[in-house]
């Protein structure tokens, strides 16, 4: 009996080869990064900017691990994060910061946006002999990888993942330079209360709010924070409507907006990714209803440039949290850091965004701590002792506002949980189809429009 004819065999082999080729490439850039672990930042992006002549002849080279989602669902943001880290390393290697006198060698690992891969890659970074790790964007990946770093005794700096639980464990080796989810929620309310007052609206007149959120950790934790602090800023406000939804599956938001229309809350807080944020605003326009303020909490979907691109003028007057916008550089305090964004612009053809800025800052803070460890006489050759020295240095790191690059806030990691209490999250409003910082008020080049025109 003929099991399979020759033609079918040839087809099967062709398909197998195609599958293998596709599979190889589909593994994403992470696999390639794994091979090229010794690539230094100066080799990667240094061609665009010449090192300054003040570079000492011989400087200690320190390996720092970078753990990011460079493929998978969060690849886009992971790559943006990497740009921030690489630029910070480049500036350090070029002696742009006189207080940092060593060179960084980045060892890059890809989490593929997966927890198990993240943990495996962290172990590999440990074996590569990195003195500390920075990463890993997704809270769901940062949490288990930070736990593994704690077990190993490897200093871990989280510059962007915001889940509260990461710094709630009392871990000795884990430090967060950015705000946590509760602080994002707190700042959302703080910003909106300040904006209302600045526009002559009494916060007591805000009687009703609605909370809409995607139902992963990100949405749930941020919304829990909003519930916790709501009455601190809006004493008479009541949650009249609350709804969660699966961001990946949602195909229509008509029901939610119809219910909101009936409840007619003054403020709508929406924790969303891009697609659901766009769909929600589209549906509000379709059903002809809008609140006094539609506020994107958590600096996610509404903070993306695509949000405005897709909605056009319908995006106007919406608010969104943002970690960083070039508007900051217009302020007196922060204008001295404009050269960083100019360098970023030279390399990537556009300004930094929140992700790259946060990671730049995280790398800088880690570098300051490593320098402290070196200054204390710790020997980088004794890896275990040096890691402990870096950990100790991180624990005593305090950088006042104004001295920290790019950000209007400072860093204080001396607190027991290593959660920087000084980080704040700005609020932007979309005006003339452009994101403008409107809070903190002292860094806002324009005044917010509140309430939004109907």
């Amino acid at each position, binding site marked *: 009996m003929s099991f399979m004819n020759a033609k079918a065999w040839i087809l099967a082999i062709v398909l197998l080869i195609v599958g293998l080729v596709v599979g190889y490439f589909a593994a994403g850039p992470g696999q390639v990064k794994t091979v090229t672990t010794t690539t230094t930042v100066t080799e990667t992006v240094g061609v665009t900017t010449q090192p300054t002549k003040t570079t000492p002849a011989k400087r200690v080279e320190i390996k720092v691990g970078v753990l990011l989602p460079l493929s998978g669902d969060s690849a886009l943001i992971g790559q943006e994060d990497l740009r921030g880290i690489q630029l910070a390393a480049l500036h350090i290697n070029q002696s742009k910061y006189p207080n940092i006198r060593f060179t960084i060698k980045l060892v890059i690992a890809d989490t593929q946006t997966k927890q198990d891969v993240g943990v495996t890659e962290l172990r590999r970074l440990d074996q590569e002999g990195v003195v500390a790790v920075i990463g890993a964007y997704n809270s769901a990946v940062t949490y288990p990888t930070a736990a593994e770093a704690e077990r190993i005794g490897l200093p871990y700096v989280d510059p962007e993942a915001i889940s509260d639980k990461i710094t709630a464990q009392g871990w000795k080796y884990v430090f967060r330079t950015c705000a946590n989810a509760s602080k994002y929620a707190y700042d959302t309310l703080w910003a909106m209360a300040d904006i209302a007052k600045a526009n002559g609206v009494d916060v007591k007149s805000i009687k009703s709010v609605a909370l809409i959120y995607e139902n992963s950790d990100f949405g749930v934790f941020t919304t829990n924070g909003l519930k916790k602090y709501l009455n601190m800023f809006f004493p008479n406000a009541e949650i009249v409507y609350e709804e969660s939804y699966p961001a990946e599956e949602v195909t229509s938001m008509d029901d939610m907006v119809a*219910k909101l229309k009936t409840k007619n809350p003054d403020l709508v807080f929406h924790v969303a990714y891009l697609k659901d944020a*766009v769909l929600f605003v589209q549906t509000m326009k379709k059903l002809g209803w809008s609140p006094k303020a539609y506020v994107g909490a958590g600096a996610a979907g509404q903070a993306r440039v695509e949000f405005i691109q*897709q909605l*056009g003028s319908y995006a106007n007057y919406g608010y969104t949290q943002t970690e960083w916008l070039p508007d900051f550089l217009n302020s007196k305090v922060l204008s001295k850091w404009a050269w960083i964004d100019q360098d970023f612009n030279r390399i990537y053809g556009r300004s930094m965004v929140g992700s790259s800025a946060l990671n730049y800052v995280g790398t800088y803070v880690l570098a300051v701590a490593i320098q402290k460890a070196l200054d204390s006489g710790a020997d980088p050759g004794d890896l275990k002792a040096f890691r402990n020295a870096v950990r100790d240095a991180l624990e005593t790191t305090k950088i006042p506002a104004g001295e920290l690059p790019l950000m209007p806030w400072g860093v204080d990691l001396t607190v027991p949980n290593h959660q920087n209490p000084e980080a704040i999250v700005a609020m932007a409003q979309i005006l003339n189809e452009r994101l403008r910082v409107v809070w903190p008020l002292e860094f806002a080049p324009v005044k917010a429009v509140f309430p939004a025109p109907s």
Partner: protein
Amino acid sequence: MYFQLHRRRRGDFTSLINFFPLLRIRIGKVTGGSPLIELGAYTQLLVSYTILGGVYGLTALGLSLIWGVMKAVNWAHGDFLMLGMYVAFWTVTLLGIDPYIAAIVSFILLGLLGMMTHIIAIEPVVEKPGGHEATLLTTLGISVILESLALILWSPSPRSYYNSYKNTFLEVLGVRTSVAEAIAFMISIISIVAVDQFLRRVRIGKAIRAVSQNPIGARVVGIDVPRIRLMTFGLGVALAGMAGVLVSTFYPNIRPLAGSVWDIASYVVVIFAGLGTIYGVIFAGILIGILEGLGTIIFSNAFRQILVYAVFLMILLLRPQGLFGKALRRV
């Protein structure tokens, strides 16, 4: 956990009562709170979810055709839909053409791709023993290849294009909808009628029906069955490609895995409708749309799938041939 949250929300226990306005009027004082939605909003939501259901019907049409005629489940259906979305994105952003012209381009391109796929991966296995299972596996392979290629070529970053259709609204008797959704719904109806008429009146269409009903008999009367299968698969994929473009006009999510959102709905629609029923697809689509709407209106968003799949299970148990399919008689 969910139920705890749910109970805390004021008015939610009354939501079932609120859904029936007459009942609420009778015991309005007892229930208290504001109604879950305004009375007028019911019409709005009914229309919105009917339109969404119509689009579900369109996304399921190609799948139904392939499943009904070839008795083969096309696991890559959602990925062809995704390719249609990208065709819309690239043609609109690069060539600046109208997305509805892109729908024609997508229909042709995806049709050709579908035929190519059929020649390479379906036809060699379809007539072998266990051919239907083999088809399922080969289409699963195609799905993985298409998704991986899309990730390599276009990255996981979601894309969309600005079009005035989705930001322009129609209002009829107080009911509003976007022009993009209204057009997608109309094209769904037109496509379904066109496919039905094609199957009834055009020679090839009649041959497709013959193959669907009795492939051996069709071969006996001289129909080139492999050619008909090729055309059916091509047409099914072409319809998926067109549906992808239409979805992209109002759904802001063009990315390599975007098809999965719509293909699950498509499988449910086809099973609801029953195999081989073209008009059934639109009615099943609308039914699912309305069920989703009811789930969310009466309860919450978490219930939308629960209600759909509860009815889905009931149909499988009580009427396995689908709502509009014909039962096979045991001889």
